[in-house]
């Protein structure tokens, strides 16, 4: 009886992915305890959230991929509608309109898009699997552009780019032409050149965005303002050295120099207390998750599965890269949490939801084999 239940529970779960997630959660709990100044309640909050998210992941893992396919278009449409609603009824905070008040809580529709967009694109390409030609890529481009434009208007360039990139990964795996990729790479290089030059940047982006980039290039320009985060982040990481200052011994952390140290800047805490060795261990854990995702993608038996799994893995990679790049002063400061490590429910729920999708795709394959 118990065995039956256990089988039922473990059937959709990918043990490798689960192991890596648990390892990352362990790291997260340890760091959060330090970052929150030994705030036991906050750590318990997080643990509770982990449980809830994992249950959510398990639920999603139980859904068959073909059912997910049916959800793709409605999810996308709801996402776009909500983004439009933000445009008209959104809550403005810090000069950006990103939230919707739905009575009980505020939601950020762009978070939904993170899931909905790759789902939509994977479904779209899967639908035209045998007849794919360049026109489909144009349509796919438009599917990306609509939410991207809406998020850009909020304005939230960071999230917009991250969501657009998650769509782009689908296009990439679906076979976007190398030539086009080459042109795009060239375009990105030119764009990077422009935004790193103030006079050019101001024509293309919002002034605050240009300032953010300028500050990143020289944090000392604005040491108490926008540069503060970067300076304090790099100081914390840099002062960590090879092995770090030790758990609970990070001075920058515990003396309040690190802003948002339990959320977006938690990596500064980690880097200070665990040093280069700790950072590399974390990178390895992330690589394991990402490669497990890519393996699932590789072994998926439908195009939908392959594209979705590939995009999810790459998206996870992108979030990790952007956060660590930002905290270590390599990339501009955008509000991106460190996946599975940062304190904060929404991000964890949405990431574990995508892992649920991964597990579902993985299970689908084994069922077919069986």
């Amino acid at each position, binding site marked *: 009886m118990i065995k039956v239940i256990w089988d039922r529970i473990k059937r959709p779960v990918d043990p490798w992915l689960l192991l890596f997630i648990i390892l990352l959660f362990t790291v997260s709990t340890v760091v959060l305890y330090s970052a929150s100044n030994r705030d036991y309640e906050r750590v318990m909050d997080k643990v509770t959230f982990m449980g809830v998210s994992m249950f959510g992941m398990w639920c999603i893992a139980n859904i068959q991929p073909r059912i997910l396919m049916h959800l793709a278009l409605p999810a996308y449409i709801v996402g776009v509608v909500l983004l439009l609603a933000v445009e008209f009824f959104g809550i403005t905070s810090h000069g950006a309109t990103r939230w919707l008040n739905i009575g009980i809580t505020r939601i950020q529709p762009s978070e939904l898009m993170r899931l909905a967009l790759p789902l939509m694109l994977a479904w779209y390409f899967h639908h035209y699997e*045998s007849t794919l030609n360049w026109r489909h890529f144009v349509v796919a481009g438009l599917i990306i552009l609509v939410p991207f434009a809406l998020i850009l208007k909020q304005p939230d360039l960071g999230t917009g780019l991250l969501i657009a990139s998650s769509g782009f*990964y689908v296009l*990439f*795996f679906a*076979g976007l032409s190398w030539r086009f990729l080459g042109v795009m790479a060239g375009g990105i290089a030119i764009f990077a050149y422009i935004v790193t030059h103030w006079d050019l940047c101001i024509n293309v982006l919002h002034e605050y965005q240009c300032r953010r980039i300028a500050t990143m290039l020289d944090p000392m320009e604005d040491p108490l303002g926008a540069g503060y985060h970067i300076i*304090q982040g*790099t*100081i*914390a*990481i*840099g*002062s*960590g*050295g*090879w092995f770090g200052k030790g758990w609970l011994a990070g*001075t*920058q952390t515990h*003396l*309040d*120099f690190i802003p948002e140290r339990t959320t977006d800047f938690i990596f500064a805490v980690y*880097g200070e207390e665990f*040093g*280069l060795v700790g*950072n*590399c261990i974390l*990178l390895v854990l*992330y*690589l394991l998750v*990402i*490669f497990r995702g*890519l393996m699932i*993608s*590789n072994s998926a038996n439908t*195009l939908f599965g*392959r594209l979705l799994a*590939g995009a999810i893995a*790459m998206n996870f*990679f992108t979030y990790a*890269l952007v956060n*660590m*790049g930002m905290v*270590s*002063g*390599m990339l501009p400061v955008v509000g991106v949490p460190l996946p599975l490590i940062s304190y904060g429910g929404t991000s964890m729920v949405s990431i574990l939801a995508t892992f649920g999708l991964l597990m579902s795709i993985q299970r689908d394959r084994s069922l077919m084999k069986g």
Partner: protein
Amino acid sequence: MNGRVVMNQHGERNAFQVRLAVAALFIFVMFGILVGRFVWLQVLQHDRYLTLAEQNRISLVPISPSRGIIRDRNGVVLAHNFSAYTLEITPSKVGDLEDTIARLKGIIDITPKDRRRFKKLQDETKDFETLPIRTKLTDEEVARFAAQSYRFPGVEIKARLFRQYPLGESASHLIGYIGRINDRDLKKLDESGRLANYRGTDHIGKLGLEQSYEEQLHGVTGFEQVEIDSGGRAVRTLKRIPPQSGKDLTLSVDIKLQQMVEQQFAGRRGSLVAIDPRNGGILALISQPGFDPNLFVDGIDPQSWSELNESPDKPLLNRAIRGEYPPGSTFKPFMAMAALELNTPIVNQVITDPGYFVYGGHRFNDSKKGGYGSMTFDRSIALSSDTYFYQMAVQMGIDNIAKSMAELDFGKSTGSDLPGERPGILPSPEWKKKRFKKAAQQKWYSGETVSIGIGQGYNAYTPMQMAHATATLANRGVMFKPHAVQTITDPITGKVTVVEPTPVKTMSWKPANMERVIRGMEGVMTIGTAAGVFRNAPYVSAGKTGTAQVYSLKGSKYNANAIKEHLRDHSWFIAFAPSDKPTIALAVIVENGGFGAQAAAPIARKVLDYYLTGKLPVDPAATSAKNASAASSAAQASETEESMPEQTEDVPRD
């Protein structure tokens, strides 16, 4: 068909795996860059960031040392510290200062005087400095403010050590005072490399011994290494380097003597410097009137300041070291000493004193009408014969006079440990060339030499210089630097450093010559101008009276009523005792006191009595009455004998 699809699917599979491989490569490259960044930060730049992190979190909080205590030779405290609460405002942190002060008045009593003083401090300092608006708060006031402090951002109560001068005006010119560090002090501290030691200190010695012994009194500032958070709040102390208290000073001054003399001046202006000739230790240093140094400690309010500064009695002027007066006849013993050493012919001659001396067609009058008739070297000092010294000066010549007198530190600072000593004026042809611009004024007239001989003319010396020269003569030519501080004590270790009196030099005087001059000065006390004042003295003393013309009336702002008093001569007296083995030498001047024997000598008598026999004048009122009668009888006795060069119109004036 089916096979084609399968083939196609295989092709797609391969293409997809290529894409996966490219993605994996991309991931490795990007993570590789990230690792590179970590290596750069955590390995290559580690030291730099570690330093930055330390700077971020560690702040040095200075702990100011407690200032050394000043005591007199018998241990009486002259300057010490006490702890009190102050209400302090940081103007830059306060929005509306006027409003804040108005509201503060509702809780704590702030007088208009406090307000004025604060305004003055504010004008002198930068806005981000914390300035006291009320000092010495009572416990009740502290409690009242503490309850309301949330209403007053930028206002705080601090416990501070305050300097206090328990004896008030007494010895104020000697001790000096401390005041808030101003821009000039900062510059000086910076130049001398001592600025770091003044972090956390806002007072510095401004005058007197407080200024000249600043380095010893101040001590060494300690530090607390405090870990701070990003808001700059102290979280915990990492290390504490305690401050080293300033050293305590013990003076050679006897404050009982000092206060007794101050009482003798009672409303008169003047100065007395008494020195132990055996080591140069200053026994008393009076400049009257004085001021209350306590007024300056927390910043003086403008009203008190202008009262002190504009008073015609100049209470802020340290007459002992900065008041330059013509020495009058007190110059004669030194002239006589020089003449003997130079073997000037007159010293072995008996001259006829007709009551005047004619030189270069000018007639120089003697103070005694009709003169003394025959006059010898020895009698000339006791009786203060001007004619004798006129001739002596002419025989010596101005260059010899200037050279001999410079040996005794006339015309230059004595090098005492009191700051701001003025050099006085030792006239000479060279001095005149430097002093005047026009060629006609630069020329030295031989007639000018005549009046130099009796301590008039351009001659101008401080009481300190007179006392110093007297002490040197008293000590038989062995000169010590005058100094007020006897020992410097480390309050922690108890280590006592004695300020060793080292003889500056020994005059090349012949002992016989010295004894001859001293016998002459003994004559002043027995048969001469001060005989009345020193009648029945239980010791043998040597002295010399003097009367200095008031020469600086030009451009005077004195009002018509005061001018008559201010026109009177200054009364001088120098003395030492016991004359064969002197333990005290002094110089007294009473401004506008008249003849030397009239005002100055009676004060000298009391100093010598107290110092040599331990007798203090019993009742100040009674003694001063007795002194007045003694002085007047003395004056009567010596009226005709005292030099009165005022009447010699030919004497060049300044």
